[in-house]
């Protein structure tokens, strides 16, 4: 299923663009900020940066950048026909690209959260948040890949999902936790440390994360199967 050539090209596309530096800036700033607050105030005050900024914002932003970089530009300018005019399974292409986006999301999103949380002291809390970030990063990258396969405005659409749905409305209405990837991750992390909230049912959180991941990758593959070149006419 996994196509190493596609994955290699996706990785080159990810590393070869200016966005990569943006992708790198997020974790550096996050860790820097947490280290600074820890040094100036204390670990517990610094930890607050993570559930309020690192986890709900930096993680999904990194996932958006990664997912849209591996697929977005090729769909936008139509150069994906060079990959699609091959007898290569479309779902394989989607999964290979998703794995690259996932790797980038974990490396530039979840891992820095772990490092930052460890700086603040409590390592149980840090591992719990890391687990949540891995789960959420997995589902986010698949969802944003699917969005990239559908619309040219993938970055905007993904940002709206994160900023308006999950952050803004999620803070106003607790029921949105049932339809929020970030909250599912926190619920799973809650099993390790009660420092994390308990917004939904555990079984539901696990299944919902799995469903979004599998459906996201499948849907991206299906869109690629029906990719149309409309030309300039």
């Amino acid at each position, binding site marked *: 299923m996994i*196509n*190493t*050539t*596609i994955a*290699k*090209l996706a990785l*080159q*596309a990810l590393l*070869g663009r200016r966005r990569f530096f943006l992708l790198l800036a997020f974790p550096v700033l996050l860790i820097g900020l947490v280290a600074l607050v820890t040094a100036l105030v204390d670990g517990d005050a610094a930890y607050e940066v993570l559930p309020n900024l690192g986890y709900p914002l930096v993680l999904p932003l990194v996932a958006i950048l990664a997912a849209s970089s591996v697929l977005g*530009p*090729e769909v936008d*300018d*139509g*150069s994906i*026909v*060079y*990959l*699609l*005019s*091959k*007898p*290569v*399974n*479309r779902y394989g292409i989607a999964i290979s690209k998703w794995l690259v986006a996932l790797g980038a999301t974990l490396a530039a999103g979840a891992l820095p959260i772990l490092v930052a949380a460890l700086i603040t002291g409590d390592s149980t809390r840090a591992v719990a948040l890391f687990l949540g970030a891995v789960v959420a990063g997995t589902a986010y990258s698949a969802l944003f890949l699917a969005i990239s396969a559908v619309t040219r405005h993938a970055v905007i659409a993904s940002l709206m999902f994160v900023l308006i749905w999950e952050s803004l409305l999620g803070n106003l209405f607790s029921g949105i936790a049932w339809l929020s990837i970030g909250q599912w991750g926190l619920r799973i992390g809650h099993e390790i440390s009660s420092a994390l909230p308990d917004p939904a049912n555990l079984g539901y959180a696990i299944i919902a994360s799995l469903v979004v991941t599998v459906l996201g990758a499948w849907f991206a593959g299906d869109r690629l*199967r*029906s*990719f*149309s*070149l*409309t*030309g*300039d*006419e």
Partner: protein
Amino acid sequence: MSTLVLDSASRWFGNVVAVNDVSLTIGPGVTGLLGPNGAGKTTLMAMMSGFLAPSAGHVTLDGQPVWRNTETYRKIGLVPERELSFGYLTGRQFVRANADLHRLGEAAAATERILEVVDMVEPAGRRLDTYSKGMRQRIKIAAALVHDPTVLLLDEPFNGVDPRQRMHLMDLLRRLGDEGRTVLFSSHILEEVERLARHIEVVVSGRHAASGDFGAIRRLMTDRPVQYAVQSSDNRVLASVLMAQESVRAVSLRGDQLDVQVGDLGSFAVDLPLLARQHDVTLFELSPSDESLESVFAYLVAR
């Protein structure tokens, strides 16, 4: 040997019909798809290469539908009009990636072999974004040919390519056609198509306007009624003489010139100077007033 068949294929986008009920059979050898810009060539190409579903009708390659059929790409090599956006790869890396995607057993050897065919061995180590238009076109063709396909589809392959490179590309395509491959290329330039293709399909405004070898198409295009503007020492005398000729369909005076509609171009060209001399009329100017390719296409549609 492969045959690409369009059976009453149509494609519309909302209210706009881009391709209207086109039936074509494209077999081995070089075929040119000729039509003015916006005629639906790119839409046809997209349908033939499996990148657009026909709204009605069927597009098949050797009996198999091409839409949502990944396996057809074993037989098809596609050279899209799109620019390569893999500027960060070298020519060799790009062709090699194509070979790998086809899971060729000897991908490295196939890559070198095809680079040689398109004469790109020397620049293959350079990044794609340093290439000239002609070089990028040849690398695209190499990438499309690396798996030895029986069908090669090229969308406007000569656009922006300088004359020397164009000659080179034409030789290459001719050779591929002679090898028994089905080569189809689109173009809006008659001379280009005529020089390369044995068989020509003409599309105008989304419709299949004409089909045949280039001689037949050329005749269709030259035998149509042509409008000429003539200036002479005595337009009225010339008009009365011309009107008596079989080859002339209509004559009218307009200001100090004579508009002549000619049915049979060959005999008109021979007769005009003789008649002028017989009647002591001096010809000052003779010019075709609708020789543009667009008017040729318009005639083919109206036919």
